[in-house]
């Protein structure tokens, strides 16, 4: 993956597939530290699946026996001296508070740090593909914070769907302008 924002787009698909109704993507950036956390309230993973989830031969896909999403994300973190951790609570054991948290920590000053890239595109495409999910995005930087909460947008939009083309275009610009304003 050429950008971490592509990894985020990819990892969030797992949350969508897990049937999540709320997915939050939190980025935090400060001197020599960069973290990405994706939290969902999907079905979660059982302990034995979770134990092997970074193995490329563990996958939920049905067309091939390999899944590279998490291994690639782990590699991107570890090649900077960082790490990837995943915690999960499966719905069979935690009927009311299930879900998964994927956290990747990076050293952004490391020469093998992959740039974040076009995060605005990632967020808009996630919303475009799954407008019924409550998406929460925050990017905390030392000089401010960029954020988007689809529930706030829905409150304004009423019956107009989030994935209306014009709304999607607005969301992309809205995120980009927040970055310019920092």
């Amino acid at each position, binding site marked *: *993956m050429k950008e971490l924002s*592509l990894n985020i*787009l*990819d990892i969030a*698909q797992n949350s969508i*597939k897990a049937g999540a109704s709320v997915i939050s993507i939190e980025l935090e950036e400060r001197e020599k530290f960069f973290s990405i956390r994706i939290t969902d309230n999907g079905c979660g993973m059982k302990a034995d699946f979770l134990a092997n989830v970074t193995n490329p031969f563990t996958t939920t*896909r049905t*067309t*091939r026996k390999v*899944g*590279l*999403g998490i291994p*690639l994300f782990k590699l991107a973190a570890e090649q900077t001296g960082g790490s990837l951790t995943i915690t999960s609570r499966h719905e069979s054991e935690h009927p009311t508070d299930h879900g998964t948290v994927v956290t990747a920590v990076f050293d952004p000053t490391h020469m093998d740090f992959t740039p974040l890239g*076009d995060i605005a*595109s*990632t967020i*808009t*495409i996630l919303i*475009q*593909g799954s407008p019924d999910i409550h998406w929460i995005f925050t990017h905390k930087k030392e000089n401010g914070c960029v954020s988007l909460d689809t529930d*706030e*947008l829905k409150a*304004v*939009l*009423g*019956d*107009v769907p989030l994935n*209306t*083309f*014009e*709304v*999607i*275009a*607005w969301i992309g*610009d*809205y995120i980009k*302008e927040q970055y310019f*304003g920092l």
Partner: protein
Amino acid sequence: MKSLAELAAIREKMQGKVVLREGSGDIRVVVGMATCGIAAGARPVLSAFVEEINKRVLAGKITVTQTGCIGICQFEPVVEIYEADKEKVTYVKMTPEKAKEVIEKHLVGGKVIEEYTISNI
């Protein structure tokens, strides 16, 4: 600066169109967005479809959706076009430029661009 007031304006505008938008989606554009597709460049392809359809005001006619891996990872980014009463068209190794061309010639013009389809590989 973008504001929520602007979003409210979009709402006002769209509400008048709700009747028009029913019966929409004569054409369905499906973009593969699994790890293989994303790594091969599916995100800018999908963005190009969304932006171009918005720009050309084709929203009433075309819907854009995403799917997982369809099993031909080596040909990603893959885009499938579904149209009522027509055979599915599978475009392979797509780029944002090709996406715009597909909208122009195929989705608007009605002519399949054979050289970008999977049958041409």
